[in-house]
Every structure is written in structure tokens, then in C-alpha cells.
């Protein structure tokens, strides 16, 4: 077996990470500030997608409410900042703790169901949070709220686009590192075993529910981190960041990139943003006005991937070693 970084997959992944690492230098050199803002969003959504992959990919739990945790992270930062607590040292831990607590609570209820019921109940809880946030008139209600960014005095200035990008990128790397360790840990093996054969795992003596609940809580925490970054990226929070469409997008991203592949969510996010960005103008070239309906093309594309390339983009890069 060749070393992982000598395979085509490894080379492409390393090049991709290198490209992301130096993106601010490139966008500055070519004066493409818009590209840096797209890059920032790609990195942030990748963190969210990696966190969903932990439970969907490795745990087999199709959560249709993952965006709610982003929303909770974002709103915790936004509300604290609106109330005058601007220190990131305080905001960020509070945001993550709240999200983990919420994930534990709804996980304890929804993980008692299976299959389509699990999908529906996670969606229902996410909608609950969504409508709660749009009801928060003091914090903008439906319109959302402009906030000031978290402060880390003397350490980093989040208004600096390049610095903020690098922070997001470093956190993405940390998330990927944690996920890579998790997958091959005792905990990760239990989680993956339960996806493969839940009854067997129980017959081995594993209280599967507890492990899934822990995974659900961890994933909620990392999703909240993405939400914190999202709020700081635009200095803005709104219920839209946790609409069910976003939860659906995240599932699409994970499936597109390759379920249960470490870097799958990263490939998936890049592909998703690329399609969103380039498919409409491409269709407009074919016929003026078609660009508006790009999802008519994207939908069937996803169906084809789900049917014929079950490993997503990751599987196009060659066979994976276990």
C-alpha cells in the first residue's frame, strides 16, 4: 500500500489544501477580492459539512436539521454582541455550549426514531429553532440583524478579510484533523459499526444510543463553530442561515462529496459553490433567461450521482483504503 499522500487522491487533496492555504495571497496578487469572500464561505460551509459527515457519513444518521446548529452558533454570537458582550473569548464558548446542549436534548428525543421518522423529527426541531429566531423581534426578527464582529484584542482582528480567512482555514484544518482521529478511534469504530449493523452492535453489548447521542452532540458543536464564523463573516445574522433549505444543501454537499470520506465534504462544498456560481451563466449562454432555472439541471445531476456514483466525488479519485 503506497503512502496516502502518494496516491492520486492524496496529491489532489494536498494541492487543494495548499491552494486554500495561500488563497489570500493569490486573490491579493490578482486583485480578486470577491474570490476571497467566496473562499471564506467555502471554508466555513466545509466545517459545517465535515460536522454533518461525522453523523451522516460515519454514523448513518440522516439529520435534516443540521443548519439549526449553525443558526444557534450565529445567534449566540449575535445576541451577545447586541447586548454589548463583544469578547470572542466569551461569545464563542457560550455559542458552542448552547449548541451542544441543544443537540444533546433533541438528539435524546430524535435518536429513538429511525429512518424517515428521524429525518422528519430533526427537521421539525430545526424548524422550531428557525421560527423562534424569526420571532425574536428585538434581534431583527425575519430581517436579521447587523452585528459587530467578535473581538479578540491583541490576537486577531476579524475585520481583516485575509486574517479572518486564515482563521477559518485553520479551524477547518483542526476540524478535519479531529474527524480523522475520531474515525479510527474506539468511539469512531462503534459509531461506524452501528451504521453497518445496529442490532449486531447491541448484541455485542454496546449501548448504541449513547454513542450516537455523543456523536450528535459533537457534530452540533462543530456546526455551531461554522455558525459563529458565518455570523462574523457577514457581521450579520438572520433566520435564513438555518432555513431547511440550508440543511438540505448540507446533505447535498456531503452526498456530492462522498459520504463517509474524510475530505468528501470539502470537495462537495467546492463543487456546490462552483455549480451555484457557474451553472447559471453557462445556461444563460445557451439561452437568455435559462440561468434562473439552474436547479432544474442540478437536481437531475444529483440524482445521477446518488444512483451511479455512490461514493460521490471522492470515489472518482480512486479506491479508498479502509
Amino acid at each position, binding site marked *: 500500500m503506497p503512502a496516502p499522500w502518494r496516491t492520486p487522491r492524496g496529491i489532489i487533496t494536498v494541492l487543494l489544501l495548499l491552494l486554500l492555504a495561500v488563497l489570500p495571497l493569490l486573490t491579493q496578487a490578482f486583485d480578486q477580492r470577491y474570490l476571497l469572500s467566496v473562499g471564506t464561505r467555502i471554508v466555513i460551509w466545509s466545517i459545517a459539512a465535515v460536522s454533518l459527515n461525522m453523523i451522516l457519513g460515519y454514523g448513518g444518521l440522516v439529520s435534516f436539521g443540521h443548519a439549526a446548529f449553525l443558526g444557534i452558533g450565529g445567534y449566540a454570537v449575535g445576541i451577545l454582541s447586541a447586548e454589548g458582550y463583544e469578547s470572542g473569548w466569551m461569545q464563542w464558548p457560550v455559542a458552542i455550549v448552547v449548541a451542544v446542549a441543544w443537540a444533546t436534548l433533541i438528539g435524546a428525543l430524535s435518536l429513538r426514531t429511525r429512518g424517515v421518522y428521524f429525518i422528519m423529527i430533526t427537521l421539525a426541531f430545526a424548524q422550531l429553532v428557525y421560527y423562534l429566531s424569526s420571532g425574536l423581534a428585538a434581534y431583527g426578527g425575519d430581517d436579521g440583524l447587523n452585528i459587530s464582529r467578535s473581538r479578540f484584542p491583541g490576537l486577531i482582528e476579524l475585520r481583516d478579510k485575509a486574517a479572518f480567512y486564515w482563521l477559518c482555514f485553520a479551524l477547518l484544518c483542526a476540524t478535519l484533523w479531529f474527524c480523522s*482521529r475520531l474515525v479510527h*478511534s*474506539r468511539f469512531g469504530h462503534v459509531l*461506524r459499526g452501528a451504521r*453497518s*449493523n445496529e442490532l449486531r*452492535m447491541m*448484541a455485542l453489548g*454496546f449501548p448504541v444510543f449513547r454513542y450516537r447521542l455523543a456523536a450528535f452532540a459533537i457534530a452540533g458543536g462543530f456546526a455551531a463553530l461554522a455558525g459563529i464564523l458565518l455570523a462574523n463573516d457577514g457581521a450579520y445574522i438572520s433566520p435564513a442561515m438555518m432555513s431547511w433549505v440550508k440543511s438540505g444543501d448540507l446533505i447535498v454537499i456531503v452526498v456530492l462529496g462522498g459520504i463517509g470520506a474524510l475530505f468528501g465534504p470539502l470537495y462537495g462544498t467546492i463543487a456546490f459553490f462552483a455549480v451555484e456560481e457557474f451553472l447559471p451563466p453557462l445556461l444563460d449562454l445557451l439561452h437568455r433567461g435559462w440561468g434562473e432555472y439552474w436547479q432544474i439541471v442540478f437536481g437531475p445531476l444529483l440524482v445521477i450521482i446518488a444512483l451511479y456514483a455512490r461514493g460521490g466525488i471522492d470515489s472518482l479519485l480512486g479506491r479508498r483504503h*479502509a
Partner: protein
Amino acid sequence: MPEPLLQAQALVKRFGGLIATDNVALDVMPREIHALIGPNGAGKTTLVGQLTGNLRPDFGTIRFAGRDVTRLPIDARVRLGLARSFQITSVLRDFTALDNVALAVQAHDGHSFRFLADVRRDRGLRDRAQEGLEAVGLGRRGETLASALSHGEQRQLEIAMALAGEPKLLLLDEPMAGMGVEESQRMVELLRGLKQRCGMLLIEHDMDAVFALADRITVLVYGRAIASGSPDEIRNNAAVRQAYLGGEAP
């Protein structure tokens, strides 16, 4: 007389109007192989389900290793030492044989809330898993994916997984199902060798295997235990021959 390892008393399980388990009493002594036989539809699987915790009896108690386990969930019973193999092969198909057994070892190693250390470098775990594979004759198949093992090998793997936790009692649900003659014989030898390690409740259709292995046999017909005794007693029991063996001695 020592206390039975497993003791079920007055078990009743109904599905609507059907009485699948009708006032059944059953026990297994330490280091005993107790076979449970009966025609299709006799309620063997339902009875096993109640013993393992997949089903809850409507009435009756189940004691295991000196405790009442009637209301304990599956995984808690397993941790007390009540392991099982499945009628339909149940291994983790996308894990290697070694990883399958390693997970079984891990299950009895205390909690698995360890998030960072790589299990593939956990020598203690790997070594014990390898020993488990060797005990069932799969020592050289560790790196093979479970889905790529032959049917007989998958059944052996199941036994290795069930044994990994050093159970007090092994519940074997048709371990010979779907096996050829040669594979069956190997399984009989394997099970005979395991008798020193734990008691067994053997549910099996293969009468050669049952009469070769069992110390005691209970016959289940229409949810009721119609006879229980040594292989010789069962072979010569008129009611059993009538109801089950079709009048012919096996």
C-alpha cells in the same frame, strides 16, 4: 447441585391471538450444552428473543447469573455475559474480520468514549482479537473484509465475536444453518472444544449435530416444551417421536 446459569420460568409471549411461547421453563447449567429443538414455527426464535432481550415476555421471569434480567435491555444482558450468535449471519460486513473481533473485545473493555487514539495501533486490542480469530480457525483471515469471507467462515467469525467478551453463556441460533457437511463437522468440533469455556444454549435443526453435542435437549412444539431430558430420553420419548421426529428414530 449448582445454581443454573440461565433460568427461565413460566414464560408467556402472545402475538395477538397466537401464543408463541406457552408457559415455558428452561434452564442451562454452567458448562452444559442444552439444545432446543422443534419443528418450524414452534416458537424457538421467539423464545430466544426473550432470553436475549429483543422481545419482552408478557409473563414469567428470566434469571441469569443470579440476577433477574427480565427487564434488562439487550446490551446490558450481554455485558453480564449472555452472548449470542444469529440465525442469519450477522457480522459487520464492511469491517475486516480482525476489526469485527476487535470491536467485540472493545465492547467488554469498559466504555468506548475514547475519541483520539487510533484503534489500529492498539496492540492489546489487536492481539486479543487475533487470538479470538485463531481460536475459531480464522487466524490467517484477519485482514479480509467480513463480506468477502465464505458463509462458513462468517459463521466462525460470529462465534469469535460472541466469545470475545468471555461470556458465561453462549446462545447459538442455528450455527449450522446453510453449512455443508464438512463445515458442519468443523463447527461441531469447534463447539465441543468451547464447552470448557462457557455454557451453551443451542438452537439447531441439524439433528446429527444436536445429538453429538447436547447434554440435554428440550423439545418445543407449538410454543410448549413437550419434553426435556438427555439425548437418549428424547430419542425414546413417544410424544417427541409423534410430534416431531415423525415416528422415526434419528
